[in-house]
């Protein structure tokens, strides 16, 4: 099942699992018309789903999570034995006594798979299963799926917006767009370009939008064929190309930073990274390896226990509230509701936050200036809102993200940190964000792109660093990216 964000894939799957009731139409399971009123009915019909966001209780162990919701009496030995049996049958390697909070995303997914397979379902739905997995983990997942299908005759529905995994792991493809099925075909006859076109409804340049569709091969092919010289934005014409960037001054220099979390865990461990003016540095890594802590550090939300942050040649006391913002470090945070905007203030107010000088005189706000500035920025960044005074809460996610982008860029930062800037956005919005980041880099802003979407990092970055367990474990330039080595670095293997 292939489609853009918002095409209706998840809605359709939720109907199948009984979470949403259809207004019209019918569902047949094994030839019989059925009404799926709730997830329990779905489970009785043999339909199970592994959700994109895992539903595990972190404080419990694996076996406790697996038996959760069973009406029978708890029997630890029996439950553990069942987990081990399933784990061996599918080669999942899950320890029933492990605490879930200590597991990686890939291991958690395997727990979800065991929860699902334990009920011997006949139909299994996977919603965006690879979004937080390393390439190696994804590969492992697909081999489990193949066993489930070929050896045991179960049906698997794989929901994804990534072209390469759909081409790689499926037999039949259904493409959805705006709530309708627009195409059905067998995988053997499909091509990446054809799929992309049906998905978006217009011919697309695979290279410029590869990030959205997740086709790594396309990106690397294009890199091999035409390195740097004909990037879609014409970066060669600007002085800030990847080769020139090395000669530009360093605008952000993070040196040997260590950040300790509340539980005493080292979130960042002696991490160092630099960004030059006009350069896009991509920070690739599997989720949960310190990206969030780095974002927090660069937003002055945590204080490092050691190390220094130097912006434009000046050492900054990173832990002081607002210090990095004042030093010219803009940030599009990973979770904009957490530290990027104030939902209960208006759009106009959210467009200024730290930058009150422009709309005030001697400490008194000038409402007219505030409104004028808001209208100007809403125009420049194409923000769709009822009025500048509409509460931030009333905007769609994409427009909220544009408000954050507009505010950060309009403050003329030296450095812009973009953490997962396109997460949850659709193709059009991703395109827009990518273009804005490129344009900012051309204007001389140093950009640190923190993303778990490898494709995004590869399409946008001049230089790629890999973070693992709070450290930078490897670095490569755009024109000598080695996917195999990258994959190993992501998985924490020295390469």
């Amino acid at each position, binding site marked *: 099942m292939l489609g853009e964000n918002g095409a209706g894939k998840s809605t359709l799957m939720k109907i199948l699992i009984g979470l949403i009731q259809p207004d019209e139409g019918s569902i047949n399971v094994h030839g019989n018309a059925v009404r799926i009123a709730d997830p329990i009915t779905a489970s009785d019909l043999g339909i199970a789903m592994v959700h994109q966001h895992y539903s595990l209780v972190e404080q419990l162990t694996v076996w406790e999570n697996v038996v959760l919701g069973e009406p029978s009496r708890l029997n630890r030995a029996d439950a553990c034995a069942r987990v081990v049996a399933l784990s061996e049958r599918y080669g999942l390697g899950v320890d029933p006594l492990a605490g879930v909070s200590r597991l990686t995303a890939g291991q958690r997914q395997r727990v979800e798979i065991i929860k699902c397979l334990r009920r011997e379902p006949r139909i299994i739905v996977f919603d965006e299963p690879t979004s937080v997995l390393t390439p190696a983990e994804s590969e492992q997942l697909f081999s489990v799926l193949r066993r489930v299908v070929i050896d045991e005759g179960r049906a698997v529905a794989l929901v994804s917006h990534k072209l390469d995994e759909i081409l790689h792991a499926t037999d039949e493809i259904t493409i959805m767009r705006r709530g309708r099925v627009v195409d059905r075909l067998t995988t053997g006859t499909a091509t990446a370009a054809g799929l992309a076109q049906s998905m978006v409804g217009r011919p697309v340049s695979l290279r410029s939008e590869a990030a959205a569709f997740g086709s790594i091969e396309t990106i690397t092919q294009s890199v091999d064929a035409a390195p740097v010289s004909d990037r879609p934005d014409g970066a060669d014409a600007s002085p800030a190309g990847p080769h020139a960037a090395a000669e530009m001054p360093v605008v952000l220099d993070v040196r040997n930073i260590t950040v300790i979390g509340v539980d005493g865990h080292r979130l960042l461990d002696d991490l160092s990274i630099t960004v030059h003016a006009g350069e896009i540095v991509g920070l690739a890594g599997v989720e949960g390896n310190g990206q969030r802590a780095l974002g927090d550090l660069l*937003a*002055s*939300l945590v204080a490092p226990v050691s190390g220094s942050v130097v912006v434009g040649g000046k050492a900054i006391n990173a832990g*002081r*509230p*607002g*210090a990095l*913002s*004042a030093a010219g470090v803009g*940030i599009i*945070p990973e979770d904009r509701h*957490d*530290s*990027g*905007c*104030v*939902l*209960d*203030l208006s759009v106009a*107010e959210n467009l200024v*936050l*730290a930058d*009150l000088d422009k709309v*005030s005189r001697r*400490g*008194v*706000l000038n409402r007219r200036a505030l409104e004028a500035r808001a209208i100007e920025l809403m125009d420049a960044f*194409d923000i*769709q809102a*009822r009025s500048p005074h509409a509460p931030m*809460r*009333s905007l*769609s*996610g994409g427009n909220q993200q544009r408000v954050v982008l507009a505010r950060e860029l309009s403050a003329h930062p030296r450095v812009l940190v973009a953490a997962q800037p396109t997460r949850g956005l*659709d193709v*059009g*919005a991703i395109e827009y964000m990518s273009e804005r980041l490129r344009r900012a880099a051309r204007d001389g802003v140093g950009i640190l792109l923190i993303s778990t979407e490898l494709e995004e990092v590869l399409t946008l970055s001049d230089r790629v660093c890999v973070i693992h367990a709070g450290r930078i474990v490897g670095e490569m330039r755009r024109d000598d990216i080695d996917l195999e080595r990258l994959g190993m670095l992501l998985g924490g293997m020295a390469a």
Partner: protein
Amino acid sequence: MSAAAMDAGCEPAAIGPARRRSNDRLVRSVWMIATYATCIAVALGLCAVVVSATGGSAAKVFSALLDGSVRSPGAWGLTISTATPLLGVAMGTILASKAGMTNIGQEGQLLLGAAATAYFATRLDLPGPLLITVSLLAAAVIGGLWAGLAALMKFSRKVPEVMSTLLLVYIAFQITTFGLTKKWLLLATVNKTRTNNGEPLPASGHMPVIRLFGNTVTWGVVVALAIAAIVGFVLTRTTVGFRLRMLGLNERTARRAGVSAAAFGGATLIISGMTAGLAGGLWLTGGIAGDRFTSAISSNIGWQGLLVALLARGRALLAILMAFVFAALRTGSGFLAATGVDRRIADLVQAMLVLALLIPPAVEALQNHRRGRAGAA
């Protein structure tokens, strides 16, 4: 989606939205007024039921409340003077709560403020206006210090200010009770009775009054209104107020924008203690509670001021209105004895009104929440 596509999508509706929005707003405000009216009517109806059940006459009780608060000679002046400390307490509370700080220790801050005023007004030999100014400043300072203890504990040791401000009330009571046993502190030097009374304030220590149509109103009300005006202005019109609101709504976003929770949150907590202390000074010098300090002088003014702030929901004008309503219930209840009904019935009316006035905003918030979710989906 490109910008052009979005524009095209909006076009057919382009004529309608402005009118629809004003219609929406009208419908919503009519609906809000109706909800408020219903809730108040139900609350008063329930009070009437209780009055009748205890053998009284509801009509007489309400009539007595009105007489005591506004109708009888001099009543509304008394009510306005009583509203003065309530408003002072409420405005500080509003300021702190906007910054996300919950001060609920106003009763103690107010008590200490009154004690400080009594101490200086009975000891310093200064001309009238200066004496009052100094003793009121002392009230503000001690109220601020008392709340400052809570701020210190919160930002150095993460003690929740909800707990610390509340518990400090009881310590404040102990301190003033102790003060009333020692002549070098608060106890009257010439003690005719056995009760622990403070030294009477000298004539120059009383707040001057304004005489209006046979009513006397303490000048303190001007101070309280000035506090309301300043807090209202700061919150809505200044960059400091903007930062405070940001802090209260999203601490992490505020921190990233350079707002330190310890500096801004601590300062608002201290200021709210100062206004509560000042309210205590105004209450004592206003003379309505007698001419001297006693340990019963605070008599729930702090708690009621907290309720005024709760009902005003951050708005200065509404706080002025609510302070007057609460003061009216206080002064009105003095007339209840004549009806043969327990004067505590006024507390019941007050409690019912608080509940009644809290329901509509809660309903509105719930609706906004639903609408917000529908909009997001």
